[in-house]
């Protein structure tokens, strides 16, 4: 097949810093999020407000809606008793016990503060808050278990009929793996619960239309998954649900599928015969949207005094929250990635996921992989400290050698390509490692109040993994219109990742149509019935690859048609990018444009790209922190990130993805934590209480890009969305610990708050 072009030679748009085409609207009128949607189908919508459980574990003895129903502006009150036509909810994964599925509204028992108990319908948003307070719910308190280690003892049960809080788990095949090790170090690491906290909270708008279907506007990460989740929860056929995706104000893993509240809004729209809308408050979001992380990890690492690590054991206790969701499965990814970038002879891996009286745990940027990296990278530092060797040296000693052909790790993951020693060397050079160590030594010698810490992590993570349904794949449709413009339909679902720009770049490269004339559409299940959405850093490597493939196939289709029209051999036709069409080889000025072909009959191609498997981007991060040893206050001074996600298509956007991940990783290491008191009352349920990271707590980041292509897609690209949070979390934590290591401190759990750091220094002082 000919790939030659005519016209002036020009550089490829791919790999260049193209500014986002979506930005002008965002910056002038603002995007249209779910709460902004103005649509005649939603005219006269009732406003839905949820009544939520105020205690963590209780039997509901009665619900009296009479005062609410009598109030001004109240249209109705819905409780579990009204949902008789809704099927019993199924567990999110077949692996979970059937009895642990969350009902749409609490049925008889509440199991976490914030669980939806009733919904009130009002004529206005403000009336909803008034009326919700009038629903009288009587609770009979039950014993509460908040701590996953306590939950694992099964002394307090969330589901007494099941006899256990255990959701799922796996035993280690072998636990006696440290026999020949000169040194064995053990640590208990808390990978704390954090709030996902997208700036846009959860919302829904729904109408049961004349077409006898539910049409729902829901912020999501993939309309097709939201469609099937709503259909499943409500007992409809998928074909009876249409999902439309407005602009989405951040998701980070927490907006995949649909939550019970959205299903209730859909149910109301049908039952009450009028459209319904819901937007939660931030305080509701902080207890209602699934949280992230929430693991207690026990690591044991053994090896020789010369720095060689021989054995690594990781036992994960996952807090799944009250009703198991994706969070209960996070440890499976954590264990898969347990040995990470290291060549370790023997592994022993186990996990248990247990239910507690807390908000369910779900996916949050990285979802299981940051936890794996945090465990091994802390363990490496514990080992280095024990044998008195430089942490960079210990890492270099144990890294897997570079590889270009896929290889299977001891954890069972099939890494596609990687060069971890290069990443480590690059970050050490970029940061000026030796100079930093000298500065640290000086400060230690002088006994400065502000001590310097240097933290490292070398990481590899999984992106674009498939699911049980098979190999990872995505579809795209490319159509050229008679006016010369083009439309792309994609099964991905951008909410900040810039697909409108990058998908247009990919099609433009193949067709010669300028990106300004290419429109990208997604997120309406009528328009795009299939799609995997955006999450797990999959979009470019599968969705982008599908766009490229569809555009290439469109050129071939056009070539066949043009050959007929021009009465020349198809092989004599070459792409004419400057005219966005095909030209006869060697005869300038001849040929036909795609637009002209589209005028004769619709010119479009739908294509599915299937990847052979997940890809494994990698990198190394180095953090520099300053710790005030008098107050325990840690400040992040520098964060140097070497990230390799294969070929970069738009550096401007890829860097933005890295920045966001770095910030969220640093935030977990330094400040953020969801807390409960012993009775299960959340103590961080507003943005005033939850210390979501701000601009003042972060430095500007120092990025170094390396590009080791993957062979798993023709772009050579791996995922970049989550890398920052995978690498940065342990790098920053290690830096804080390192700053006070000379005082005898070996470990400080995250977030490394002044209180924790100060207490660790005190404890070390007492012990030594």
């Amino acid at each position, binding site marked *: 097949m000919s790939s030659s072009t005519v016209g002036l030679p020009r550089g490829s748009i791919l790999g260049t810093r193209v500014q986002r085409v979506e930005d002008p609207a965002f910056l002038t009128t*603002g995007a249209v999020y779910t709460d902004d949607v103005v649509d005649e189908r939603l005219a006269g919508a009732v406003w839905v407000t949820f009544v939520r459980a105020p205690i963590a574990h209780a039997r509901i003895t009665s619900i009296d809606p009479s005062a609410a129903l009598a109030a001004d502006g109240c249209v109705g009150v819905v409780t579990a008793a009204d949902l008789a036509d809704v099927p019993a909810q199924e567990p999110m994964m077949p692996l979970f016990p059937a009895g642990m599925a969350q009902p749409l509204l609490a049925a008889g028992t509440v199991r976490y503060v914030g669980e939806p108990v009733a919904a009130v319908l009002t004529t206005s948003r403000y009336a909803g808050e008034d009326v919700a307070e009038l629903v009288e719910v009587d609770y009979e308190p039950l014993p509460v278990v908040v701590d996953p280690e306590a939950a694992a003892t099964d002394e307090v049960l969330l589901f007494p009929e099941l006899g256990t809080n255990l959701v799922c788990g796996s035993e280690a095949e072998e636990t006696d793996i440290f026999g020949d090790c000169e040194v064995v170090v053990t640590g208990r690491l808390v990978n704390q619960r954090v709030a996902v906290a997208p700036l846009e909270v959860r919302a829904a708008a729904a109408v049961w239309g004349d077409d006898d279907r539910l049409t729902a506007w829901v912020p999501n990460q993939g309309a097709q998954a939201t469609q099937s989740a709503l259909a499943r929860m409500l007992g409809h056929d998928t074909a009876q649900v249409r999902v439309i995706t407005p602009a989405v*104000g951040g998701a980070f893993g927490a907006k995949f599928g649909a939550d019970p509240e959205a299903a209730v809004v859909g149910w109301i729209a049908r039952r009450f015969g009028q459209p319904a809308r819901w937007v939660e408050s931030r305080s509701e979001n902080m207890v209602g949207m699934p949280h992230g992380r929430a693991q207690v990890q026990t690591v044991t690492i053994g090896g020789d005094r010369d720095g060689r690590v021989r054995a690594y054991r990781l036992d994960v206790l996952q807090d799944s929250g009250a009703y198991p969701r994706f969070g209960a499965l996070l440890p499976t990814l954590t264990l898969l990635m347990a040995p990470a970038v290291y060549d370790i002879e023997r592994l022993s891996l186990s996990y248990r996921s247990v239910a507690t009286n807390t908000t369910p745990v779900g996916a949050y940027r990285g979802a299981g992989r940051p936890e794996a990296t945090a465990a091994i990278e802390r363990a490496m530092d514990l080992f280095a400290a024990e044998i008195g060797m430089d942490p960079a040296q210990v890492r270099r000693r144990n890294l897997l050698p570079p590889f270009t052909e896929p290889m299977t790790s001891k954890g069972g993951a099939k890494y596609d390509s990687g060069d971890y020693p290069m990443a480590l060397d690059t970050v050490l050079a970029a940061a000026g490692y030796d100079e930093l160590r000298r500065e640290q030594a000086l400060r230690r010698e002088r006994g400065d109040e502000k001590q310097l810490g240097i933290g490292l992590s070398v990481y590899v993570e999984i992106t674009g993994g498939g699911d049980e349904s098979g190999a990872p794949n995505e579809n795209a449709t490319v159509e050229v219109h008679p006016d010369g413009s083009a439309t792309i339909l994609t099964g991905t679902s951008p909410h900040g990742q810039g697909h409108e720009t990058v998908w247009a770049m990919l099609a433009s490269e193949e067709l010669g149509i300028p990106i300004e004339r290419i429109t990208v559409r997604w997120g309406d299940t009528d328009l795009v019935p299939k799609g995997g959405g955006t999450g797990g850093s999959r979009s470019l490597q599968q969705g982008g690859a599908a766009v490229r493939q569809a555009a290439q196939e469109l050129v071939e289709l056009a070539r066949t048609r043009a050959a007929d029209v021009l009465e020349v051999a198809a092989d004599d036709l070459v792409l004419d990018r400057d005219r966005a069409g095909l030209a006869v080889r060697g005869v300038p000025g001849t040929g036909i444009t795609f637009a002209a072909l589209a005028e004769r009959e619709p010119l479009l191609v739908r294509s599915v790209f299937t990847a052979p498997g997940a890809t494994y981007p990698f990198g190394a991060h180095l953090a520099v922190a300053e710790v005030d040893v008098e107050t325990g206050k840690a400040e992040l001074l520098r964060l140097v990130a070497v990230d390799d996600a294969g070929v970069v298509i738009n550096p401007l956007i890829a860097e933005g993805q890295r920045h966001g991940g770095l910030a969220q990783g640093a935030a977990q290491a330094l400040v953020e934590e969801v807390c409960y008191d012993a009775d299960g009352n959340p103590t961080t349920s507003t943005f005033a209480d939850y210390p979501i990271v701000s601009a003042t707590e972060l430095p500007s980041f120092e990025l170094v890009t390396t590009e080791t292509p993957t062979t798993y897609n023709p772009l050579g690209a791996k995922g970049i969305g989550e890398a920052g949070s995978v690498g940065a979390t342990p790098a920053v934590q290690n830096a804080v610990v390192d700053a006070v290591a000379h005082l005898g401190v070996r470990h400080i759990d995250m977030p490394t708050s002044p209180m924790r750091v100060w207490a660790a220094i005190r404890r070390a002082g007492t012990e030594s």
Partner: protein
Amino acid sequence: MRVSITVNGERRTDDVEPRLLLAHYLRDVRGLKATNIGCDTTSCGACTVLVDGETVKSCTVLAVQADGSSVTTLEGLAGPDGPHPVQAAFQAEHGLQCGFCTPGMVMASAGLLAENPKPTEREVRAGLEGNLCRCTGYHNIVRAVLAAAEEMAEA
């Protein structure tokens, strides 16, 4: 209660509930939905607008308190000659991703530069402490504000 508020140069009189927040007035009464609401504790700044030139979190002001005032929202920031330098810089520096914090962030940045036309990086970070962004890690937002400051100094 009756309020007369000028929004983006257009003065209007409306009957509002005394408890109506300025943010909801702008969104629901005036139909200007760029201004977003991201929290209920005056923490996130997504709802930041200019009231008589001062940056204000519109979720913490009642519409009646803005009676007689002149409000500028994102929709009214651009001048007759095109976008405000902060708007242009946010695009050039990729200072936004999901866009939800953006209207407030842009207004806060414009307010910051009006007060301090030549801020240092640290001053920009401190000035935007009350505006939360979950996507960008603030890196490119800070670059955008510094770039806009330079642009405005040259103009």
